[in-house]
């Protein structure tokens, strides 16, 4: 019973979202609002059970919670910072929340500084070595990559006018960037279509008799309803 309701739910919601392709309509609006509400509730619940309870209370009251952590007194600080965050709700003490924000901004800036320097900048520089054991073809490729990287970086110069030699080099850089963008685009086409295939297969599966022809039934109902709304809107003198 619950399973059958679930199937009809899935079909209705899936088709409601797809109906957006036709245009904004009450089905999409309803699905969108339901999605916002359900997901907010879902994330809030998950945050409490999976983060706050085990990671914070599990460390402050290890015996009561039993999340597998030992007692760690330093976790009183995030508790305080978290409570400071809640002071946003008070007019008088809302400046306390800035302290929590300041902690987050500071710690993330410090961590990212190091991580990006190490794992993106230095490793990328390191990987520009050339391997001479390959064929001529691979060596030519390495040279092309070198040219592409250098000219691409020139494009990002801010304090130099892009004219003359710099302008020419940065143009070459733009060409390389464009090829990269095109390639990402092509890739995205591939991946996204396979997602669509997944959804359609589910809809096809649910149009079988054992699900009481759920997909065609819901589809028909939606087409009729949307058609009726469109008809009424065209005839009504007041439009919003």
């Amino acid at each position, binding site marked *: 019973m619950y399973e059958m309701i679930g199937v009809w739910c899935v079909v209705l919601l899936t088709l409601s979202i797809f109906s957006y392709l036709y245009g*904004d309509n009450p089905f999409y609006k309803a699905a969108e609002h339901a999605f916002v509400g359900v997901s907010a509730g879902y994330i809030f619940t998950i945050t409490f059970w999976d983060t706050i309870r085990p990671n914070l209370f599990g460390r402050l009251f290890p015996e009561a919670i039993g999340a597998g952590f030992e007692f760690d007194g330093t976790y009183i600080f995030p508790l305080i910072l978290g409570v400071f965050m809640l002071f946003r709700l008070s007019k008088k003490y809302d400046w306390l929340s800035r302290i929590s924000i300041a902690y987050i901004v500071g710690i993330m800036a410090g961590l990212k500084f190091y991580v990006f320097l190490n*794992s993106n900048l230095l490793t990328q520089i390191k990987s520009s070595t050339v391997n001479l054991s390959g064929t001529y073809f691979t060596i030519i490729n390495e040279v092309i990559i070198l040219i592409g990287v250098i000219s691409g970086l020139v494009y990002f110069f801010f304090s*130099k*006018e892009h004219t003359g030699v710099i302008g020419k080099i940065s143009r070459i850089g733009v060409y390389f960037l464009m090829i990269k963008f095109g390639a990402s685009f092509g890739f995205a086409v591939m991946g996204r279509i396979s997602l669509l295939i997944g959804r359609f297969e589910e809809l096809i599966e649910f149009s079988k008799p054992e699900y009481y022809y759920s997909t065609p039934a819901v589809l028909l109902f939606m087409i009729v309803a949307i058609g009726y709304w469109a008809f009424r809107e065209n005839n009504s003198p007041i439009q919003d």
Partner: protein
Amino acid sequence: MILIFYYLFLGSFFLEGNETTFICILLLCFVVEYFIDIAKSGVEIYMRPIAAIKAMEEAVGRATEMGTPVLYVPGISSLDQIDTISGLTILGHVAGMTAEYEANLHVPVCVPIVMETAKETCKEAYLKKGRPDLYRNDMVHYVTDDQFAYAAGVNGIMLREKPAAVFFQGKFYAESLILAETGNSIGAIQIAGTGSSSQIPFFVTACDYTLIGEEFYAASAYLSGSPEMLGSIKGQDYVKVCCMVAIIVVFVSSLLNGLNIIDFDITSLFRTNAIK
């Protein structure tokens, strides 16, 4: 001085294996600080114009003329991404513009903590422009944490409020295309900026202006126009030159190494033992 100190206590006071990174950081700080000093001393610094940054004010102006709100989307990540922080700094400037033009600003946010920060940023921006009366607390509001639910919600806002100017500034993932295509279909001026390299192509094709990668992080400094910030951008450019030189050095040395002219593997310099 610091270097000598560093090597002296390497292993005891300092962690081993991070020498290259440490030297890089010192070099970077030195270069950037040097140019900040120069800028502070009053030397004019040339900055190449970036179309997207120039267009921001125009877009806000157009939205004001048409009487529609300005929609600002600060991405879907939390404050643990520098992209989000950069997006919020740009929001500060955009909020300043809307305060000046008396346009209506609308900021739907994906993460509660970003919402609180964005509120703070907007409030201060309005205060600084002398228009605290125009600031409303519901300008910035939370939608939901989920990626696609957020995209659906923002889509709905775009379809029903029809903003004339849309800003996408922050960290974006797959939802970028849904947002940008919807914005495009309602005919808004769209200005995007992101450091998510896989999403840049979608913004480039669907938006009117896009801040690509590094431009996005520099935008706030551009907008602030203070010599200190501009100096740091100039310093960043010179760090870039250092990187290019390093790439060429690595390339040439590996070439020479391969031809057996020198016997030194330069990549061994780049060893890093990260604590992650």
